[in-house]
């Protein structure tokens, strides 16, 4: 963690917020940060971690004079490991709250534990609708958004742009289904028709030739895809190899055209359109501040994961402020206070619904273009409102 200390110290000095040690008269407040630091989602975890640090650094890593200490844990995207690490964080490290968590599978396993341990748990990604639906809990909040919140109105949007038929294509696992089914519901409600659904085995597929050939023969106007990481690279490249770029454009979200993949995709991304909850060029004050701080600390532009990590940290800091640096006796009180927050985040205004899930104020349609300096960047095309979450939470809190 040497390198982290260096830049953090520099950042703090530059803001002039390092204060002498005598201010630390209270024990530090401990935040467990659980992310899949190794493996396929390592880049996501890194982005979130960075954004989270920035949010805390904005407050000098302190809340009401009390130093905040981050205790990191790696859930390896596996529920059983997540459960172990959660117990370790709560019992051994004695953290005051738990943040992070990318995989919905891990999140579902943890929400029951959170309730048992009465430990406030604030998820950063975990987009499955059920997290704050069927499995909702007064001890659990989510600062990002739900699959339905993100994709339902996207379906409506593309249908309203005159697209009548589409193929949906994604990995055959929970997240793939919840995102694309949300898109399908929206698309069909607005009069579009999904002519084919293609589900490829998650993390097993290397060749999309068969799938793309089927899609090419379907007669649809677009392919709407949900993929991330290595799979996204392969899909976008092979889609181009088959000469489908003009005939059957591949539209997707921020993960299909993630900037981490741009080096691998080269010019293939130029002209691609996708939806996103955040991009560095967004015109609002919170974002300008966030992007400037990120550039100074990490010498590059923040990706969506960094923005979501920042929102997670910021929501926690704002809630802590309301308690004056002391954790409430019952963790549920922390979460219900967070639910009452409305704040300006880089992605736009963040507010929560009754089951503790953050809503999307705006979803942006962007096009990837070559900027004046030859570097790739995202150009704003349009925006629309995020949808409400699916109902499903039957608990009252």
């Amino acid at each position: 963690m040497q390198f982290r200390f260096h830049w953090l110290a520099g950042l703090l000095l530059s803001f002039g917020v390092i204060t002498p040690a005598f201010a630390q008269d209270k024990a530090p407040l401990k935040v467990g940060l659980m992310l899949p630091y190794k493996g396929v989602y390592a880049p996501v975890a890194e982005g979130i971690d960075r954004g989270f640090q920035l949010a805390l650094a904005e407050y000098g890593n302190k809340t009401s004079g009390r130093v905040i200490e981050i205790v990191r844990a790696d859930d390896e995207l596996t529920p059983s490991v997540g459960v172990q690490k959660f117990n370790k964080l709560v019992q051994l490290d004695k953290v005051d709250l738990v943040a992070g968590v990318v995989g919905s599978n891990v999140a579902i396993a943890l929400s029951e534990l959170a309730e048992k341990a009465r430990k406030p748990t604030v998820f950063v990604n975990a987009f499955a609708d059920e997290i704050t639906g069927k499995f909702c809990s007064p001890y659990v909040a989510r600062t990002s958004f739900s699959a339905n919140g993100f994709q339902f109105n996207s379906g409506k949007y593309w249908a309203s742009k005159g697209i009548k038929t589409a193929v949906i294509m994604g990995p055959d696992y929970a997240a793939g289904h919840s995102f694309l089914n949300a898109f399908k519901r929206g698309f069909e409600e607005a009069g579009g028709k999904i002519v084919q659904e293609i589900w490829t085995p998650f993390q097993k597929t290397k060749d999309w030739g068969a799938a793309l050939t089927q899609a090419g023969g379907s007669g649809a106007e677009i392919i709407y895809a949900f993929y991330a990481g290595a799979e996204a690279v392969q899909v976008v490249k092979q889609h181009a190899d088959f000469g489908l770029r003009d005939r059957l454009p591949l539209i997707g979200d921020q993960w299909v055209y993630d900037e981490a993949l741009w080096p691998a995709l080269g010019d293939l991304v130029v002209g691609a359109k996708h939806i996103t909850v955040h991009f560095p060029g967004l015109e609002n004050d919170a974002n300008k501040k966030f992007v400037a701080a990120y550039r100074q600390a990490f010498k590059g532009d923040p990706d969506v994961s960094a923005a979501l990590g920042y929102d997670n940290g910021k929501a926690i800091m704002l809630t802590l402020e309301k308690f004056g640096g002391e954790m409430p006796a019952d963790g549920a009180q922390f979460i219900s206070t967070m639910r009452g927050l409305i704040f300006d985040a880089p992605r736009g205004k963040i507010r929560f619904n009754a089951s503790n899930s953050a809503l999307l104020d705006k979803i942006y349609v962007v096009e990837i273009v070559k900027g004046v300096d030859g570097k790739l960047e995202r150009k704003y095309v349009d925006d629309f409102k995020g949808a409400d979450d699916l109902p499903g939470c039957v608990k009252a809190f």
Partner: protein
Amino acid sequence: MQLLLFQLLNGLQLSMLVFLLAAGLTLIFGLMNILNLAHGAFFTLGAYSGLLASAATGSFWPALIVGPMLPFVLGALLQYFVLQPLVDRGRSTHLDLALMTFGLLFATAGAVELLYGSAFYSIAIPSALSGQVSLLGLSYPAYRLFIVAAGFAVAGSLKVVVDRTLIGATLRAGVDNREMVTALGINVNLLFAIVFGVGAALAGFAGVIAAPVMSVYSQMGIGIVVTTFVVVVVGGLGNLKGSFYASLIVGMTDTLSQAYLPDAEMFAVYALLIVVMIIRPQGLFGTVSRVA
């Protein structure tokens, strides 16, 4: 009809990619009986050294030559200095080798991640092979046809080398009766190291060939090992002809099930493996002398 033809081409292309990987493993595991789970690591290393070469020269072709070099050297050294001594100790050879090479597979992925981070890279398709080719009224990506051609070329040259040359004969003799060949004054350990290197180089070659259609990243070699072993076992251990046909069967099964029976895709290949193991434990083209 046209769609089916397209899918058959896709299947052929995938088969050849699988074969490139399986060919090396057939030499190493099938023929020399060295259980090498690190085969995926050589695939990764080949892709990354190809990446370096193409980044330095701005062209695909040097990558194809440079890519297999590092796997060759590392593979030969590994066999000579690590795996052979492990075999000579002869405690529980397969278990020792499995643990050793399995660890190596993950260590390589970790080392690559340390050096390159977890970002995704790619090698650009050479301009001569970008675009589509018209074929029987179809337009098919030219690069994919190149993969098919590369598969056939490797299959042909391996067959000639193993069956028709002195090196091939010595290798087969060394496998059959090691003591006798040693007594004839041939350094079997060195020969095995070189053949292991060639097998690893083939994996590296496959890594470079795959790079333009797939993505290059630290974990790329891990998942691919399983499919490769399925091919080698289905084809019959040590049987090049067998792994060629098994590659075709596995590639076609995978592609056609993905196209026409998507729900079965996950287990189609494994169902095939189970059926073959029950009916012909020696593999489709294997002889009875060794059973997997």
